[in-house]
């Protein structure tokens, strides 16, 4: 059975594309056949985060307009052979694709893949409607900020109105030192406010910047963010993985645990 997951947030810049790249790669590392679709028509990014920007020939809009076959547009990752990308078009508008067309495309991909990840554009307009059209479940990404959480709440409402039942929350870029000082909303604060099932907490980690610079997702690596994304992938597969104890322990304790392999 294949599963179609939309990664969305409402607000821009909270980490949707980074999350898509890392969750997609992580699932592929767990031996699932994965395709990631960049649905942000006009502002494509996922190819760059994955380091596949030089290999694009055809794109999502070409497929929908039948200028090429679906298989021709899929880019196979050089490192993970069961990981594919369907890139977005850079020089077209959001309305080049309709929700109905997206649904059909996704259904075609279901036959071939275990997981289909849809990287949603920011906003709640056409691009958002396209991205959620064919989805079975959603990962809502937010950061511990008032504006991002407000938008996440709105997105959850819209997803529910569209009868998307399985909604999970990822809190990105949390900083323990600031939470301790009382200068950042904690994981519990965010969960209290949003009342959505929490599937992952990703600490603010400079390794993310480095990994994006290099075009190589860091899921599975020993850094905090790498571990966090790995746990998210396992939870998507239904495994019960305990959450990192971000609120109580200091960074040093966590690093110690990490070296001990806990």
């Amino acid at each position, binding site marked *: 059975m294949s599963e179609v997951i939309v990664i969305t947030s409402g607000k821009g810049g909270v980490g949707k594309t980074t999350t898509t790249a890392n969750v997609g790669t992580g699932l592929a590392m767990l031996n699932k056949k994965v395709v990631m679709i960049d649905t942000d028509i006009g502002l494509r990014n996922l190819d760059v985060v994955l380091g596949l920007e030089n290999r694009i020939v055809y794109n999502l809009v070409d497929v929908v307009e039948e200028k090429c076959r679906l298989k021709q547009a899929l880019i196979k990752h050089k490192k993970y052979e069961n990981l594919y990308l369907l890139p977005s078009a850079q020089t077209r508008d959001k309305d080049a694709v309709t929700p109905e067309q997206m649904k059909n495309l996704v259904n075609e991909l279901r036959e071939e893949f275990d997981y289909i990840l849809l990287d949603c554009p920011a906003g709640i307009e056409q691009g958002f409607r396209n991205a959620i059209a064919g989805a079975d479940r959603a990962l809502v990404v937010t950061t511990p900020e*008032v504006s991002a959480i*407000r938008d996440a709440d709105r997105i959850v409402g819209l997803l529910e109105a569209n009868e998307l039942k399985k909604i999970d929350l990822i809190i990105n870029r949390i900083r323990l030192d600031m939470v301790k000082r009382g200068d950042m*909303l904690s994981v519990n604060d965010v969960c209290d*406010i949003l009342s959505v099932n929490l599937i992952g907490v990703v600490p603010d980690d400079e390794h993310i910047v480095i990994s994006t610079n290099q075009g190589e997702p860091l899921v599975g690596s020993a850094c905090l963010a790498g571990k966090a994304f790995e746990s998210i992938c396992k939870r998507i597969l239904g495994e019960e993985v305990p959450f990192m104890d971000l609120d109580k322990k200091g960074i040093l304790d966590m690093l110690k645990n990490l070296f001990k392999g806990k």
Partner: protein
Amino acid sequence: MKITDFFRKKSSSEVAKDRLKFLLVSDGLCSPEVMELIKNDIIEVISKRLEIDAQGLEIQLTETETEDNGRAPTICANIPIKSIRRK
């Protein structure tokens, strides 16, 4: 509110949480339709006991201070009473 609370400065995350709580409630009620529905419900309930001036009824979303020095979103209703209904 305790006197000690008076001197304690709220942390920025507490401020953020209060702001968010208010925002999400007001976002949820922001459509005039929802406010109108609530207004009609209030009229219906109060009218069982009192005769009120439905035209003069006003409701709005405000904030009140909670015991722990936080703020909570509050619906405030002004309901002019015409007379106590006796059956």
